[in-house]
């Protein structure tokens, strides 16, 4: 089936199985490896990306779902590698990643969160982001999200 959608701002047409999880479309058909496979059951959040601005766990949504929609992966989050998104800037400032594998999913979930909660409390963050990190970067992720919200606010003013 032919599916038309936008990926990181670029119009794309793919002829693929409409049931193929979006995760594998992004990783293997579009060769964007920033979105990670962790569990395949929407439980760990490593595959989080944005569809029309909302955060989704892409391992569990079929390709046909994004027909006519706009998909953003970590690769499309920032303007460029020099001008990082506030989430990525904060991740750099707080020196967050360890192995780094789950971080793209966390960053995508967090980027959506600070849209919804411009000044999130720890409770807001804890209630809304349930991704898994085995290395134990959670204390720094909490700090980085609060910091990212500040950076975002300062850009507006």
């Amino acid at each position: 089936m032919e599916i038309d959608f936008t990926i990181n701002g670029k119009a794309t047409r793919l002829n693929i199985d409409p049931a193929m999880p979006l995760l594998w479309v992004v990783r293997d058909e579009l060769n964007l490896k920033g979105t990670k496979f962790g569990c395949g059951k929407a439980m760990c959040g490593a595959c989080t990306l944005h569809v029309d601005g909302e955060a989704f766990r892409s391992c569990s949504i079929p390709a046909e779902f994004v027909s006519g929609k706009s998909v953003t992966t970590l690769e499309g989050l920032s303007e460029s590698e020099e001008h990082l998104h506030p989430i990525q800037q904060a991740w750099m400032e707080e020196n967050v990643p360890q192995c780094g594998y789950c971080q793209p999913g966390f960053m995508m979930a967090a980027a959506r969160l600070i849209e919804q909660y411009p000044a999130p409390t720890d409770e807001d963050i804890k209630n809304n982001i349930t991704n898994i990190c085995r290395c134990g970067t959670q204390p720094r992720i909490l700090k980085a999200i609060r910091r990212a919200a500040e950076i975002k606010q300062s850009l507006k003013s």
Partner: protein
Amino acid sequence: MATENKKTFSRRKFFQRSAIVLGGVVVATYAAKGVIRRFIAETAEGMDMPSMLANNEALLWFEILPDNTVLMKSPKIEMGQGIFTGFAMLAAEELEMPLDRIKVEHASTSNGPIDKVSTGGSNSTSSLYVTIREVAATMREMLKIAAAKQWGIKPSEVKAHNGELSSGNRKITYAALAAGTKDWEVPEIPALKPASEFRFVGKDFKRIDLKQKVLGKPIFGIDQTFPGMLYGAILQSPYIGGKLKSVKTDLAAQSPGVVKVIHEDDLVAVVAKSRYAAQTALEKMEAQWDVPKKWQQDEFVALTKVGTGTRVNVQNEGSAESAIKDHPEEVFKQEYRTPMAVHAHMEPNGSVVHAEENKATVWTGTQAPDMVRGAVSSALGLGKDEVNLKVAFSGGGFGRRMDLLQPQNVARISKIVGQPVHVFNTREQEFMNGVFRPQTHHVLAAKMNKNGEVEAITHDQATPDQIFSMAPENVGAFFLGADFISAGHGASIMYNVKNKSTSVWHQQLPVTTGIWRSVGIFPNTFAIESFMNELAHKTGKDPIALRMDLLKGSEKINKRYQKVLEVLAEKSGWDKTKPEGTGRGVAICNDRKTIAAAVAEVEIIDGMIKVRKITQVIDPGMVINPEGIRMQVEGATMMGLTATLYEEIKVKDGQIASSNFHEYPMVTLADTPEIEVVIVQGHDEPYGVGEPPMGPVAPAIGGAILQLTGKAVRSLPIRLS
């Protein structure tokens, strides 16, 4: 041993091979016997890896690139520990380079010999602390000698600074000099900079791989793609000990995108054009399994019990056993248990292999590169030298990547289809075909005199092994009896008690058990330190004061214990009034000379354990990168928290009962306590950091619950009821 010949040979080989790779812009290395001995000695001393894995051709390589940066080829692998950052700092120190001009990547067999010593045991930085500086200093002197020759002066008149060599008005960058130099003179290893002159070591530096990871660059094994690459999926038994009886593959073969179905001896696999197609087809296979026994949880747990199997005594001072046997009325005795667990690292295991006519290339994240190479070469009937292993960044390891992860099967598949093949587990395969943290059972007994002083103490730990699967079947059990090296690590009693005895008991489980971050430190510290907290509770003593008292002594280690406990008491506010409804607990361990101690502050809200704060004090000897240490301690604390509150692998009806994260909960942001990390520099050489702080987490939380409820925690994960 003809060290000199070997040295010359290695050097020449290095120049030849590197010249091909880089077009001649290369400076070299050394292979001194001191390095080799240190590797073996420290590997053995680390007690985590059998010395049969030790290396006698440990080489570390630096290359000077045309942009005047230095590329270091690391023989140790980066799986999140931050060792590349520490390595770069050590290299920069002696190379006289700015830190941001040093890059580190994994050594591979095409650009250098891979270290045969695996990465683990928290010893990457400590074991290379001297080596890296020696290699870097040697390289700096080689540059000085080359510059001196060019300028017709003595090497001592050349100054190396900030990536440049200078003498008077003359100046040349390392890169420009290296580009024009053909014959290098390698000096004896120069004297190393004294610690007082360090510019980087001891200061905070962020990870050197930070930006790639924040950008989500394709650095992991699972991210690798190659022209013509196909995707495979391998059939694995969903039963413990299950053997394939029969399999119908017709439906799988007809599934869209399938290129080939393989059924060759024990290997059943699908090869397809995409991972999705391969996994979809695999699910269509109808397999029948011979299951020798359908294990249930109770009988499985009963396999690990003190008094069952082979016993090895590992500590025996005074007459502890008779003291305890002869005075049962004065003996306090308790039992503790820890469950099986999985590694649950976020990047599943797998590899990409391209098997060609007379060679093969493997891309994977592994803690044991040499073992992977060996397995692939024997699977393909190739010599080890014909297998080139490209080590990728690992999306977590925690010991799981000390094992093989099927690269030999991926290699067989690649050979059959004649293309590069990408095979990575599903999460279900990860959980149900894992190598597990062994379950443990502990019996601790103490005899106290009338004043409540401990006169004798015994600890018996029953644990399946963590290392026997690395050797041919039965060899480990035959020679060692029990795995006192790894699974039994930390079982011995460190307290000053006149009579003490420790034994490790072994009985094989029907699943493979293996290394899991901190090896025996996690279960043993849980058991011993929970027992100490119970002793304090029983005798009405302060838990920190009790430990201080039992750790007194004139040795340096005693002073380090005292200092860590003093700092911990102060930083955790141990003597200050607790908020209402809060319990505080403490624990301490010594993991290969690093001392880690923690205080946990815990509340119980609506029957749920809420860990509010954990204060961790670590004395890792010498401190290289405090920021790196804090990250590792935070990480170990969170992993310890998961293991304390949630983690447990059970068996049911012959299967592993947890198939994915819904049946294996882990901590999330919602569980995250405040974590304060305090570093005490207690010595002038570095010890390990990644694993020791795992030890005190569970018993400190248990101690807090004991204080809060009067009930002792004796098994993990903690269940209040």
